[in-house]
């Protein structure tokens, strides 16, 4: 039976990670995208695979494999910066006028901490409203590999996002997760 390692949790580290993730969500909600880029390591991997409906026997192929199959996002820092640059032109019509986005980040768990890295898993519920009545809810889970750059600072070295949808029930993925 898998054990729930409540005792082993470093509460201070958990609090630090939570505050980091909440701060990140706030930067994105406030559309401070250039500041958000500062939270990413130069070698960041940012991936959102696609989910498929498969039989119980074929669960291994439910999620597309980043690195050899198609994903919704398969970005690095250069391409994320391009996305930010595009939004900042003021002519990216999928985000102009800008979406109103509110990110709820919850169920934060940490694991495998070392002196330099910690893995954070969480759930998200993101509300996006555009123009007059357009609205989309994005729900899913994420895993972030956070790297300690100095005593007081973490950065995101890898983020994987699993959206709880197969056919995307949204016109666009024009926001960051």
């Amino acid at each position, binding site marked *: 039976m898998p054990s729930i390692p409540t005792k082993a949790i470093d509460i201070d580290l958990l609090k630090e990670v939570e505050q980091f993730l909440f701060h990140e969500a706030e930067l994105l909600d406030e559309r401070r995208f250039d500041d958000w880029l500062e939270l990413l390591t130069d070698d960041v991997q940012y991936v*959102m*695979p*696609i989910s*498929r*409906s*498969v*039989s119980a026997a*074929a669960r291994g*192929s439910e999620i*597309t*494999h980043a*690195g*050899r*199959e*198609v*994903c*919704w*996002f*398969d*970005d690095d820092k250069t*391409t994320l910066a*391009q*996305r930010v*640059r*595009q939004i900042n*032109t*003021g*002519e*990216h*019509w*999928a*985000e102009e006028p800008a979406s109103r986005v509110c990110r709820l980040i919850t169920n934060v768990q940490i694991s495998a901490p070392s002196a330099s890295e910690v893995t954070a898993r969480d759930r998200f519920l993101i509300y996006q409203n555009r123009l007059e009545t357009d609205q989309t809810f994005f729900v899913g889970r994420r895993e972030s590999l956070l790297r300690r750059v100095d005593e007081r600072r973490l950065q995101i070295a890898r983020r994987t996002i699993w959206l709880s949808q*197969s*056919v*995307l*029930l*949204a*016109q*666009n*993925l*024009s926001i960051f997760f």
Partner: protein
Amino acid sequence: MDALKHSLQEMVDLKRGMISRKLFSDPDLYQLEQEKIFARNWLFVGHESLIPSPGDFFTSYMGEESVILARDKAGKIHVMLNSCRHRGTRVCRYDQGNTAAFYCSYHGWSYDTAGRLIGVPHYQEGYEGQLDRSRWGLIEVAQLANYKGSIWATWDASAPSFLDYLGGMKFYLDLALDSSDGGEGGSEVIGGIQKWIVASNWKFGAENFCVDHYHNPSHRSVDLAAIGPSGKGRRDIEGMRIIDVTFPGLGHGACARISGGDLAVFANYPPVAHYFKRAYAERQRHHGDRPAIWGGPGTIFPNASLQGFQPRTIALWHPRGPLQTEIWRFYLVDREAPEEVKNILRRYFVRYAGPSGMTEQDDMENWRTATEATRGVIASRYPFNYQLGFGRQLPSDPLIPGVVVMQDLSAPSEGAQRGFYARWLQLMNNGD
């Protein structure tokens, strides 16, 4: 029926270059399209690389209807309606996989991968052995074509062969399906199909690829962000001649990009630049000393759109009611390309196209708002304008098939779109 014919002629007034907004919103026209267009034309279903082994299947759509693309035990490819013959329930509930049989979750009828009914619960006691199982197999398409690995099908037994249906469009489909060195059909679909829902009529996507070079300024933000693989604009078109063509009577439209002089693509990715340089030299050996031709956007009537190079993809516009489309995107690469090259290409393709693609996001926004504008009582009294490049006569191009409607990006044309709607009108009027 004459009244319908008359009103269709009025709605699609190609002599004056005007098309009624009702084509994009009217529920009756939409229903007629399902019957006259989707139930009769050749539709793209998938690719054989998605079902390499016996028992492999991939579920797809033909119009609104779910179909199974399957490779049977003997290796033969089938396309069948995904609907039990007893009460209609889907016999395949998965996007893809491998199976010995399709099993209905409702009353348990089962079918083998060739569509034969092989299992009927209570066959002896319930049907007293009277049910002729050979007559109750899955409904198979009337014609199927495996063209260089791409699978196409039609429900119309009297439809022309797929190659006749394609006509000169074959050249442009080849640009997407052949390997970059010119080898016949050396492409494969990368695993993972993007599927998403947009509140847009299906024809907005189809006509955009058929071929709308006029909307180029809508993509200025992505050009400014310079996502192109050589660090400029959104793709490599510098120094290329860009030509759009139409195929009268067939409804297809396409674009070719013809390299002049040096081949400079993927400059920021040396392994890919090197790969295409070598492939191009090889292609010259196959095809003789002609300039390199790359595939641009195109639409095979009615709802399969192509891009042959940057990105290299097949898009489907599945109708979901007059005001909604389910878009699918398959991405293609050379099967024999090195992994490193495939990886760079795949990442570039999804940054460009699809709902997370920086270019296509803005298209979706525009198709949706165009669709919105087709519903109002007042707005729908005013037709859309399709007069761009009207009456322009251009010489044919010896390098590529099709009637040339645009030979320079500075003078775009809606000639291929007019060709698309001319075919639409003909089919809606029952003509062939």
